[in-house]
């Protein structure tokens, strides 16, 4: 086709969130030619929405903190199926990566002595989250963006990658289309870094935007790479529940870090009633102690509202099911009560949580300094993703790298808040560095025209069926209902088997999707193209969740409600089989070194 544009890079980064930008900056610093593509405009990626903060053991607020405590917290939060080497590198390197952001112009909130301030967050033993009010992600993405535009990176905005190209076993580039004209583009590259984020749009209720259709995971899978831990999806305990049109939008955990408490319709703080044994020693057993913790009292233990997300989400579900929920099917999250404890309470809340104040005021007509919010669980994050080498971030396909939310390993069965933003900069940097090295040692191979033609044919097929075909939005909504209702927070064998049947039927419908109109900025067409990715990741989540017959972290089954020794020793890897079907395999969890075990024992 004459309108196809071809471009040539050493390293092509797919995704311009925190991970992709950091990777591109590092690769460019290594002196290779770097291209960066993203589905949206620069600066609009999901990272912009992150609120609460970035976790790094800077020890500015509590000098007992260190990378070793952060490592232990991350492993405990992940229920010990994390890759220990990734958790170790992450804890060790996060402080330097955060400080580096200030050398590029970021401005975090300050301590009294002028250093970066840190706040409490669920599962972190000490105040560890560097933050800017509740708009930390904006600060991070803008800093990386504004630094990155001066590094000689070529940015292609509103360009969507639809297939990876290979040369034998290694990566050769990718095929993409641009939104504004609908032209296909072929990128030839020595190394490709996927930094495409998550899969939340596979569910009906989610904090994630339209971009989160699992593209990176699906692209990697179809190119022959392994996925890992896909059953572990994080349902954040506090999303908005009302009004209906904003259902799922996130209410930051920072609200609870600042002293916000969860109550049921009886006015009871129900979290005190269910503290898991492995957290009992670290958790306050009375309201007074919990409040002192939020005020920075080093001798106090954290309130149970700050237990890990999986646990809090299930406790909320239980209250709602037991008929003790709020009017619109959630529970109450109350920050207004702290006015009784802090002078100028309303101002204090507005200053600490400005965008939450704004969000509720504008979208729900509620003043959070006066009345409690209504909240309930929302699909938020995927711990699983592309299986990567912990040091280089290379996937099981040579030259294909992955970083950020689309990669797996760091978080195990459950991610701690704040550990994603730090993940992005620690492993984004590593991916960029190693991708540049790989590309230098292995220059880009030629592009195979047959692969390009196949991708093009698949992508343009919906136009041939035109409006006589299936409606892309209808198929997407049906899939979201399936995943939400059958593979959500509480799972079981029968429902997931049913989900697989429905996914099979939806695949057939997706193959018949048709779109009308033209190729210029046509959202119906884009939705049609995304369907393959959504279906691939939905099937991966469901198959892995069906196989893991236990409950752990984000994965909860009411037919196997407990943890199980066997499953605690395995991760589930997923790859495309010889016959094109999906294969799920058990892999032993990577063993901790003696030194790592010693840290865990010491912190227990």
């Amino acid at each position, binding site marked *: 086709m004459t309108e196809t544009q071809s471009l040539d890079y050493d390293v092509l980064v797919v995704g311009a969130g925190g991970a992709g930008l950091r990777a591109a900056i590092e690769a460019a610093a290594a002196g290779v030619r770097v291209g960066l593509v993203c589905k*949206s*405009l*620069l*600066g*609009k*990626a*999901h990272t*912009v*929405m992150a609120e609460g903060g970035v976790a790094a053991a800077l020890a500015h607020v509590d000098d007992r903190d260190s990378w070793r405590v952060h490592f232990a917290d991350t492993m405990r939060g992940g229920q010990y199926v994390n890759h220990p080497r990734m958790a170790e590198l992450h804890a060790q390197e996060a402080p330097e990566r955060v*400080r*580096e952001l*200030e*050398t*590029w*112009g970021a*401005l975090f*909130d*300050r301590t009294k*002595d*002028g*250093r*970066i301030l840190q706040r409490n967050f669920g599962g972190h033993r000490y105040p560890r989250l560097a933050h*800017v009010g509740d*708009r930390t992600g*904006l*600060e991070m993405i*803008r800093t990386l963006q*504004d*630094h990155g*535009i001066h590094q000689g990176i070529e940015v292609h*905005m509103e360009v969507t990658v639809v297939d990876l190209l290979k040369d034998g076993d290694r990566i050769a580039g990718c095929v993409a289309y641009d939104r*504004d004209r609908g032209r296909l583009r072929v990128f030839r590259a020595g190394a490709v870094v996927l930094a495409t984020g998550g899969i939340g749009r596979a569910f009906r209720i989610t904090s994630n*935007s*339209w971009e989160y259709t699992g593209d990176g995971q699906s692209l990697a899978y179809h190119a022959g790479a392994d996925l890992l831990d896909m059953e572990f999806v994080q349902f954040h305990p506090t999303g908005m529940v*009302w*009004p*209906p*049109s*904003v259902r799922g*939008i*996130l209410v930051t955990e920072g609200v609870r870090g600042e002293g916000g408490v969860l109550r049921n319709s009886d006015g009871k703080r129900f979290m005190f009633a269910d503290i898991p044994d492995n957290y009992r020693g670290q958790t306050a057993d009375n309201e007074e102690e919990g409040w002192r913790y939020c005020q920075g009292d080093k001798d106090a233990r954290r309130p149970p509202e700050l237990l890990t997300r999986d646990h809090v989400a299930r406790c909320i579900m239980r209250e709602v099911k037991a008929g003790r929920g709020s009017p619109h099917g959630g529970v109450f999250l109350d920050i207004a009560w702290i006015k009784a404890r802090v002078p100028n309470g309303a101002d204090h809340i507005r200053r600490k949580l400005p965008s939450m104040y*704004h*969000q509720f005021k*504008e*979208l*729900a007509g509620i003043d959070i300094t006066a009345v409690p919010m209504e909240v309930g669980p929302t699909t938020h994050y995927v711990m699983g993703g592309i299986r990567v080498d912990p040091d280089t971030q290379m996937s099981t396909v040579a030259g294909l790298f992955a970083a950020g939310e689309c990669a797996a390993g760091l978080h195990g069965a459950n991610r701690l808040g704040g550990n994603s933003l730090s993940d992005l900069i620690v492993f984004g940097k590593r991916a960029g560095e190693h991708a540049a090295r790989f590309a230098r040692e292995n220059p880009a191979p030629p592009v195979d025209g047959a692969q390009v033609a196949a991708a093009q044919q698949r992508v343009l097929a919906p136009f041939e069926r035109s409006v006589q075909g299936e*409606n*892309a*939005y209808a198929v997407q*909504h049906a899939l979201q209902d399936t995943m939400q209702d059958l593979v959500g927070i509480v799972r079981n064998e029968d429902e997931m088997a049913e989900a697989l049947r429905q996914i099979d039927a939806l695949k057939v419908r997706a193959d018949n999707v048709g*779109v*009308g*109109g*033209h190729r*210029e*900025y*046509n*959202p*119906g*067409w884009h939705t049609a193209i995304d369907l393959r990715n959504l279906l691939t990741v939905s099937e991966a989540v469901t198959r892995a969740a069906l196989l893991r017959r236990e409950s752990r972290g984000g994965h909860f089954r009411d037919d196997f409600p407990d943890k199980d020794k066997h499953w605690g020793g395995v991760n589930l890897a997923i790859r495309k089989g010889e016959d094109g079907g999906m294969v799920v395999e058990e892999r032993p969890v990577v063993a901790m070194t003696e030194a790592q075990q010693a840290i865990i024992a010491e912190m227990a």
Partner: protein
Amino acid sequence: MAQATFQIFRGDSKGGALQTYTTDVGEGMVALDCVHQIQAESAPDLAVRWNCKAGKCGSCSAEVNGRPRLLCMTRMADLPEGEPVRIEPMHTFPLLRDLVTDVSWNYGVKKKIAKFAPRKPDAADGSWRMQQEDIDRVQEFRKCIECYLCQDVCHVLRDHAKHDEFAGPRFFVYTAALEMHPIDTGDRIDAVKDEQNIGYCNITKCCTTVCPEGITITDNAIIPLKERVADKHYDPLLWLARKLGIGDGETGAGA
């Protein structure tokens, strides 16, 4: 559930017109929800940008009943009942399709502004000490979500199309954030005068009015920058004295 009527601009750079749609409006819905519903029901190829649906990304900028706004933060309940809702793309940027405009000009303007240049670190670990009150103002500017609604409303761009000469309010905010950053050593004041042509701004404050982040663009960014330009260019003695560190030193602007 009430029905509402919408007049939505459909078209591209070659031309277009308002088209009428109706859809059900449920409790709490925002304009973006209605556009999406229309997309799913009757206009699958209706082009609109969005990401966060929570006023955090600045993607969904458009004009509702003639006023520049984020579609995701425009509650239907706040619009006049029973009247059709008119939704059009931003007028200041070239149209791509329907509600989507080509905002790439903004990215080009930013790239030309001299980047952050920090002084030597204060501490051995490569970090700086800064007091919260010294960064409050810059943090206000850094709340900007780059929605470009201020650019859309500013008459210098909208009516006089001075895109080649005038940087626009967004980039005065950006430049002010760099200039007032406590550890930045750059000097962008000549550029503010001669390349960004801040002189074209006659302080109408329209930009401040539309900013969804509530940034006091005119009072806190533009006027202090204008003062710095004036100080530097029209009072050589004062300027020299400041350079040499004599006299009253820094004034007003960054405080």
